[in-house]
């Protein structure tokens, strides 16, 4: 029992501490692939350290939402690792707080509060960022729900642990069209949710920003919390992609110390693989213009529908 509680704490700590590593890995290798030097893998840690030691400046026109939003976002990112298989493939205590849909809901709470905070300070760029982010959410959320429905129909259960067991045990389901279509659909959604091309690109020009414009008013520790929260969101989504869908192996089965440390190493390796795929995606595409955002998302919607159809015929 104590082991399970410790394992669950270890899961949250793993997500919190390893998230900047993945971000650093992707940023460095994007540069390396283009034959430039690239920042060190540990640079995001240094950035966070710097931010937490800077002075906090708050606009006069903001309300309590301004300082509540980063806290809510960070907390929700700490809550989700409790619900998904990060290090162990059996449900830990407190894992039954929510299923796949619940996890998605908690992730959305953080985004929702940041949207509110951007409107809160009254700056123009905040409003622009919020409205663009919400427009993207309108395109993304139905498809995300459909993907979750597809996963649920495939495994006949809403718990991510059951999906994991099914995919490990049953090779036929792993290679079935349902699963492959769901992987493709979720991959496209992953690109949108973790701020990758072809929808987002990192830019310092405010009129080109989609979601980054929401956090322009933040500074100091609050900015550090927000950046950390976005890195953790990316990490969590990659973990869901690997452990629930595409690479469900490498999780600790009994929860021993050896198993947990092996699972951590396996997690890092899996995420480096996903990171390499993301590097390939980032360096091979350019950004779509605004009116074409629906195209990859419509393709993802179609793939989710095809997955559900293929499941009915299975």
């Amino acid at each position, binding site marked *: 029992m104590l082991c399970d509680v410790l394992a669950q704490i270890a899961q949250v700590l793993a997500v919190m501490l390893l998230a900047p590593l993945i971000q650093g890995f992707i940023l460095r290798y994007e540069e390396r692939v283009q034959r430039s030097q690239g920042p060190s893998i540990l640079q995001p840690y240094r950035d966070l350290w710097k931010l937490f030691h800077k002075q906090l400046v708050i606009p006069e026109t903001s309300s309590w939402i301004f300082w509540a939003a980063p806290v809510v976002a960070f907390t929700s990112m700490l809550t989700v690792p409790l619900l998904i298989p990060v290090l162990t493939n059996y449900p830990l205590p407190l894992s039954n707080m929510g299923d796949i849909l619940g996890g998605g809901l908690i992730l959305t709470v953080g985004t929702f509060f940041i949207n509110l905070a951007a409107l809160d300070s009254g700056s123009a760029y905040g409003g622009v960022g919020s409205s663009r982010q919400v427009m993207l959410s309108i395109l993304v959320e139905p498809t995300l729900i459909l993907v979750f429905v597809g996963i649920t129909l495939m495994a006949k259960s809403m718990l991510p642990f059951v999906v994991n067991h099914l995919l490990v045990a049953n090779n*036929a389901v792993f290679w079935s*069209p349902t699963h492959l279509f769901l992987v493709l659909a979720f991959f496209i959604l992953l690109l949108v949710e973790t701020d990758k091309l072809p929808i987002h690109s990192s830019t310092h020009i405010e009129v080109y920003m989609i979601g980054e414009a929401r956090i322009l008013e933040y500074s100091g520790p609050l900015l550090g919390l927000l950046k950390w929260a976005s890195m953790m969101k990316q990490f969590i989504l990659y973990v869901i992609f690997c452990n629930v869908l595409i690479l469900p192996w490498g999780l600790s089965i009994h929860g021993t110390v050896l198993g947990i440390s092996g699972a951590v190493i396996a997690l890092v390796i899996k995420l480096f693989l996903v990171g390499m795929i993301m590097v390939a995606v980032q360096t091979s595409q350019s950004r779509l213009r605004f009116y074409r955002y*629906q*195209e990859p*998302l*419509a*393709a993802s*919607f*179609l793939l989710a*529908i*095809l997955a559900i*159809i*293929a499941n*009915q*015929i*299975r």
Partner: protein
Amino acid sequence: MLAAHLDPLAASIFSLITIASMLLSFVMLGSRWLKDYMYAFGIQSWLIALLSALVGYYGHYPELYLIAILTVLFRGLLLPYLVLRILRRLHVGRELHLVLQPSTSLIVGAICVIFSLVLAFRISTAIGFPENIVVLALTVMFTMKLVGFLILSIRHEAVSHILGLMLLENGIFLGSQILIPGMPILIELVVLFDLLVAVACFGVLIRYLMARVGSTSSLELKRLIG
């Protein structure tokens, strides 16, 4: 019926090929560039030829090997070559005036798939063969027909119309390979040649369209009304 007594490995290979063909028809639906459209059609024809050969192998119909080879030659190689020649001569790259955005048409295509699935379930339960491969074959056949008609409706380039018609035929061919592999070979052979002649006629007509009307887009064909 062959599909009723298929062993599981064959059934899953057939399912995979069928679903890949359906996915390629959606690629055709959602592509802006006519070349992508044509390559998707070519790959789909190759897949259907592979399915033909496999059905011939599992069902002991040796004449289907001939059909498979002819399908590869005519629909997989000759037809894309002819279409490429037309495209090169016309200097048309893509549809310029879209009636429906590719993304919206993909969503309409998804609705078509759901409709086909419901129809296929009803038919197969009414017949008494609720096997998966039968339902899948019927679903994909109806889907490819509906998507073909959708392409014919929303696209206006002449080459898109030709490929849409060929997609309709591909759908029927795919369904007939799984459901009625024993259809007399003469019919299949003549249908294949007939399609070749049809495409030759299309090629000649496109040349006349380009010469007399000045463009191959059907948005220009507005002289005959009432």
